[in-house]
């Protein structure tokens, strides 16, 4: 239950961080650490290098851009949850964050970290997907924008290359009806299944290797969720139908 050995790097600038990611073999970025440190403690992750971005200035900005909200790589989830700007422009993001773990975790956890970790049962990737947002990633070669629908590649896998740092996530404004709902065994746990709606778009989480867009009229079509000790595949499909009804009623 202790992290395996690694070499620790604490760059002071984004440029320095990108140079480290470009030159080091097997490096992981450490932001809030609320997913990565448990993985280290369990030794499910054994990176040779940790690049801690917490000492980088300027990554904790949250601002309005292109009719939506840009959230920097070090903006803590609690700050987004409390932000009047988020409440005004994209309240769905605030609602999604309030379902993430517990406040004490959100004091440290970051929005970009959740997206980069890409747990299939987590809320923020599904929220980014349903809203049609994107992330901005940077490497020594420059910036690139990855739209949500091509960001999530598999269970805890994204389209980011090993030398790329996610510097910002962008969530479009939500004007129409929106809602997020999930079912979990205990408050604050990862969802057994969840549904998030923005206007006539619907995304599901916890029922496929990545969050998926679904047809609101037939949300379970084509889904083959996995079963585990907490929920069978059939129960997850049942939850998809019930949760979809709930978010559509909002």
């Amino acid at each position, binding site marked *: *239950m*202790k*992290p*395996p*050995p*690694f*070499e*620790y790097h*604490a760059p002071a600038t984004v440029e320095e961080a990108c140079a480290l990611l470009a030159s080091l073999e097997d490096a992981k970025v*450490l932001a809030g*650490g*609320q997913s990565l*440190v*448990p993985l280290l*403690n*369990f030794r499910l992750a054994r990176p040779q290098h*940790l690049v*801690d971005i*917490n000492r980088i200035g300027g990554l904790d900005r949250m601002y309005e851009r292109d009719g939506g909200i840009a959230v920097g790589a070090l903006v803590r989830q*609690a700050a987004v949850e409390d932000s009047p700007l988020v409440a005004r422009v994209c309240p769905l993001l605030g609602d999604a964050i*309030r*379902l993430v*773990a*517990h*406040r*004490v*975790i959100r*004091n*440290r956890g970051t929005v970009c970290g959740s997206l980069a970790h890409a747990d299939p049962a987590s809320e923020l990737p599904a929220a980014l997907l349903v809203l049609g947002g994107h992330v901005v990633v940077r490497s020594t070669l420059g910036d690139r924008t990855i739209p949500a629908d091509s960001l999530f590649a598999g269970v805890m896998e994204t389209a980011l290359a090993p030398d790329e740092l996610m510097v910002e996530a962008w969530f479009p404004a939500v004007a129409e009806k929106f809602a997020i*709902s*999930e*079912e979990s065994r*205990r*408050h*604050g746990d990862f969802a057994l299944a969840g549904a998030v709606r923005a206007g006539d778009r619907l995304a599901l989480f916890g029922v496929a290797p990545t969050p998926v867009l679904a047809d609101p009229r037939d949300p379970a079509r084509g889904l083959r969720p996995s079963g585990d000790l907490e929920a069978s595949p059939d129960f997850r499909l049942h939850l998809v139908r019930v949760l979809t009804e*709930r978010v559509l009623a909002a």
Partner: protein
Amino acid sequence: MKVNGVAHPAPNDPRRLLSDHLRHDLGLTGTHVGCEHGVCGCCTVLFDGAPVRSCLMLAVQAEGHEVTTVEGLAADGAPLHPVQQAFHECHALQCGFCTPGFVMSVVGLLKENSNPSEQEINEGISGNLCRCTGYASIRRAVERAASLSPSGAGRAQGALSNKRVGERGKDRS
């Protein structure tokens, strides 16, 4: 890093978790270690004033920051912190293993919200596990602490006592 107001050097080994650094290197064993993966809340400390899991931080990350542990709430022989006093008065503990984590979470909760509603109390302690009390007396202690705190709104103690306890906290869905 400053721990309870005293400056300490960060450890040399970057693998050292903040929780282990507090306990083993600084002898501050009030911070308890339960699950070491962020679920139980026993290791909660204040990091620059906000409650965080010390088992999910590397000690080197605390360099240049301020950490407050349960030992930092009241000096030896001094009156207890209002949250500690409230836990004592309301019997909000039995074995006591989870208590430092609860106390630090509640200190953080009341800092942000000096007069939390019943739902906000449930929400505020939902990240801490207690296997003894069933939470009813802990919830009462949070109310009591709010009334004891200088900034508290003086809520009457016991408003929760006749309400049903043990409801699941899924009140936001």
